[in-house]
């Protein structure tokens, strides 16, 4: 086993940790040795996520937090740090999607998706970065999407936010590199989570989806979690500003 992949003694803060990819990431970071603050809007779900980690012998703290509310982010980070220690790893995972013809998207919907998927990442980074800068090290993992490089009908706002995550990642990476902070983007393709699973319930749709994926399968949340562990660990200390697509070869964007 390579020590470079260990997260022993580290503390992580994961947004959107109640379900799907975020929950799998929280579990994997804890399994690799980190204490994990699990933040999400749904208190019941996020409490279950933290309990799951503790039941497996890990350290966790459940936090109710709405990523679109700046004061809630500050309160949650404070609580996480007093419970688990200074945050070494931030996983900006919380996100929502919107599947709708662009001409029907309202201003409110546009603003909500932007606030949840993009602005929240900047705000969370801004809250944890001063501590990372003071300690001279940190890891920020922004969850993007394959949709950040694809043109997808009915997903204009979602695609726009996920493309923007790449730009945010590169700028923060360049700006904070000298402080020992690495910022990378984990960009999943179709994963075995609620929305794609529902979309692929029908055999014909499933066939159409899979025919576009060279690996001929969708990804598992645990696979996104393994990439997160790499990005959170010393094994990736010389990598920053990168977007890694986890999509079975679907985009192979340059």
């Amino acid at each position, binding site marked *: 086993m*390579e020590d470079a992949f260990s997260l022993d003694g580290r503390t992580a803060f994961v947004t959107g940790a109640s379900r799907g990819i975020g929950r799998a990431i929280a579990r994997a970071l804890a399994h690799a040795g980190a204490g994990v603050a699990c933040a999400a809007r749904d208190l019941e779900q996020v409490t279950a996520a933290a309990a799951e980690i503790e039941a497996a012998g890990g350290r966790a703290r459940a936090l109710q937090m709405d990523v679109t509310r700046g004061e809630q982010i500050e309160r949650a980070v404070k609580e996480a740090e007093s419970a688990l220690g200074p945050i070494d790893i931030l996983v900006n995972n919380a996100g929502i999607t919107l599947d709708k013809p662009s001409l029907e998207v309202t201003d409110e919907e546009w603003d909500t998706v932007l606030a949840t998927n993009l602005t929240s990442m900047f705000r969370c980074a801004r809250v944890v970065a001063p501590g990372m800068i003071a300690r001279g090290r940190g890891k920020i993992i922004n969850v993007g999407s394959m949709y950040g490089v694809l043109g997808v009908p009915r997903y204009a706002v979602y695609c726009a936010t996920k493309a923007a995550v790449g730009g945010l990642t590169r700028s923060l990476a360049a700006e904070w590199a000298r402080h020992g902070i690495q910022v990378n983007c984990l960009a999943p393709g179709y994963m075995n989570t609620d929305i794609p699973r529902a979309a692929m319930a029908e055999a014909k749709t499933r066939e159409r989806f899979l025919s576009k994926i060279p*690996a001929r399968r969708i990804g598992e949340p645990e696979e996104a979690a393994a990439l997160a562990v790499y990005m959170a660990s010393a094994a990736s200390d010389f990598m920053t500003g990168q977007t890694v697509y986890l999509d079975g070869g679907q985009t192979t964007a340059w």
Partner: protein
Amino acid sequence: MDLNLKGRSVIVTGGGSNIGRAISLAFAREGAHVTIAEIDAGQGEKTAGEARTAGAASVVVAPTDVTKWDSVLATVRDVEARTGRVDVLVNNVGWTLDRLFVEKERAEWEKEVQLNLWGMINCTRAVLDGMIARKGGAIVSMGSDAGRMGEFREAVYGACKAGVIALTKSLAREVGRHGIRLNVVCPGMTMPSSEEEFGDLSMWAAEVNRAWGTPEMQARIAKAYPLRRIGKPEDVTGAVLFLASDAAGFITGQTLSVSGGYTMM
């Protein structure tokens, strides 16, 4: 995170020197069967000795000229006979001379194309039959930011590395259905930390490249990297191990620049 590389059969081309050496040793620490495919058997043996101490399941130095199909095929067949299969191929052999395009001789371009591109094509082709038959395998190739962004004095080298990236992406599409994954890691400028870490045939032994090793030049290069230092051979081993492992089972056709933030795209 346990990458489950124990007992896996891994070929590292150019696995005796510099980055290749660090990769061979990293797989050795994971308990893999390591085959160091080297044109410089002496340097290969030096690294093999370290790899045995580090905990490899087995270490064999296979004298190999990656530019010669027969040589490559013989190495791969030998590994398959000895360990039963090739789980992982690391295309690490690389070569360049630090010179302007217009000042290079045709023979230099040809050597760069042979070692950087033909070597990767030969080795990749040679392991694929077995991987397809067994429905699985991982190929990690060393690219370069010169192949993504272009680089001053690295025209043909950059073209070859762009070729490595494009070949990886095309093949990822072609053989994904067989459970085979191909990815690229682009290191930054990576200097060996001592003369012991490379052989006489390494590009680091070439006189013209020695200019990169001066403290002034190193400081100048480090400034171009957001992380403010040049690479160490160990910097890329995490990415290579991860991409070679089942933990990266849904990642294919990707290029990771592990180069201190030099290239972000």
